[in-house]
């Protein structure tokens, strides 16, 4: 640990905090607070990117960091927040099924991710290759969030958190993808956020709620008729 530079150690600290924000997302019942936590996560990922740029002298990563900060800590949470306000869900509190159980499941998944990633970490990659396990855990925890939530907006946040995890892996293990790819992915995410907004409206118009479970029930009801 001590042979690494302070910047690399700071990357580790921030990566661990990103993992913590994932657990915060998993157990956060208030929609607006979920979006705020998601914005923090985006900001932390941007900070990791900037630190990697400084530590490994990769100037193009600064562009990526700025892009991440603007999109993931600014525009996307803001857009989602606007949708939430427009749909009148500001004060919505989701009823979570047993947060301690979900947390424990998350802890189990983190251990699993560590075990899966062990062979990769033995390969000669950058000094911060240990973050790969954390990144995979962020992806899997985002997936867990999509599975455990019933609210369409929080499922979208889970999806975006998965993307954060992939991005973290790319930045810390291989010092970033080519800038063209990153730009493409960033705009994909932006377009996805816009499309999700349209979907929110469609779902709401169809079933008068954003509770995704009711999509199943409606279909069963129609079959019975």
């Amino acid at each position, binding site marked *: *640990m001590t042979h690494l530079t302070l910047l690399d150690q700071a990357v*580790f600290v921030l*990566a*661990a*905090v990103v*993992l*913590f924000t994932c657990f915060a997302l998993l157990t956060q019942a208030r929609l607006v607070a979920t979006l705020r936590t998601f914005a923090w996560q985006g900001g932390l990922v941007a900070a990791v990117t900037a630190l990697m740029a400084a530590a490994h002298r990769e100037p193009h990563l600064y562009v990526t960091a700025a892009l991440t900060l603007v999109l993931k800590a600014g525009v996307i949470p803001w857009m989602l927040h606007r949708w939430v306000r427009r749909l009148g869900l500001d004060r919505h509190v989701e009823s979570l099924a047993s947060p*301690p159980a979900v*947390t424990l499941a998350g802890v189990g998944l983190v251990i699993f991710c560590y075990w899966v990633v062990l062979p990769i970490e033995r390969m000669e990659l950058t*000094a911060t290759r240990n973050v790969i396990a954390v990144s995979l855990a962020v992806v899997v925890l985002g997936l867990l969030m999509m599975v455990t939530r019933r609210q369409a907006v929080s499922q979208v946040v889970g999806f975006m958190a998965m993307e954060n995890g992939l991005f973290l892996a790319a930045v810390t293990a291989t010092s970033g993808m080519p800038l063209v790819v990153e730009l493409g992915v960033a705009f994909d995410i932006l377009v996805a956020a816009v499309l999700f907004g349209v979907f929110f409206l469609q779902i709401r118009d169809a079933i008068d709620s954003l509770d995704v479970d009711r999509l199943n029930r409606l279909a069963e009801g129609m079959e019975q008729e």
Partner: protein
Amino acid sequence: MDHLLSVWAWSLAVLQALLVLAAAPLLVGWVRRVKARLQNRKGPPLTQPYRELAKLLTKEALVAHTASPVFRAAPYIVFGATWIATATLPSLATGLPSAAVADVVVLAGFLALARFFLALAGLDVGTAFGGMGSSREMMISALAEPAMLTAVFTITMTAHTTNLSGVMEQLLGAPLALRPSILFALGALALVAIAETGRIPIDNPATHLELTMIHEAMILEYSGRHLALMEWAAQLKLLLYGTLIANVFFPWGVATVLKPSALAFAALALAGKLAVLGVLLALAETTLAKMRLFRAPLFLNLAFLLALLGMFSHVILEVGA
């Protein structure tokens, strides 16, 4: 020479034990004072806890006629166990002869012993409040203890020893490193300390409101010197957690050689660190509201999660890096 040195070291250990005993009420007085100032009150003087203890020690100890010997013995056991735990914790210097006992597992054992007798004493007289307080205390501690042990084990994994004196020497000797595991362990231990010492948002040390009290409910039947010992033990426990956080996570200033100048500097450093922690505690208590009792598991769940994440980040990020 060796003989003289050990006499000097032992007398220092005894001095440290007496010092923590004398300093514990001062820390509580300081927290109360800062809290009063934050709430625009003048607040009692810093020496108020001493006066309260002196008053209680001179008063007659009344014991309910239903009380068993456990009730009479409990204050001495609680006080003794907490005092030994606080006194052996390296607060001024590492490598004192008493530090051989300052093992995290032993420390947790002493605290558990004190808690066990405190809960027994609450149940002993058979009043409703005592039983309620004991059951609540047991619920909180059953959730807090795993979090505390996981947090402390995270640190001991970094230092490769469970002896706190060894941990401090290891951390002082190593070059400065940012370790996510220690950051998380600090967060977890701070939350556990708040829960275990009965501060807001888990318990309110300043009220006897029957619906919410935990610690006060258990010692409701005590009076006189028994009550004084119980109060003193609670103050020692606050000092113990304060010193643990101050010296394990910020060990700078702790004397590694037993020279008078180094020890004086260590005492000043510790006083400074505890004063800052006291201000932070008072700030937290002023800005937070007390939680409903049934939300306490969520609070401690967070502490346990932080401790677990600390352990994971040690294993995942720091080993082999």
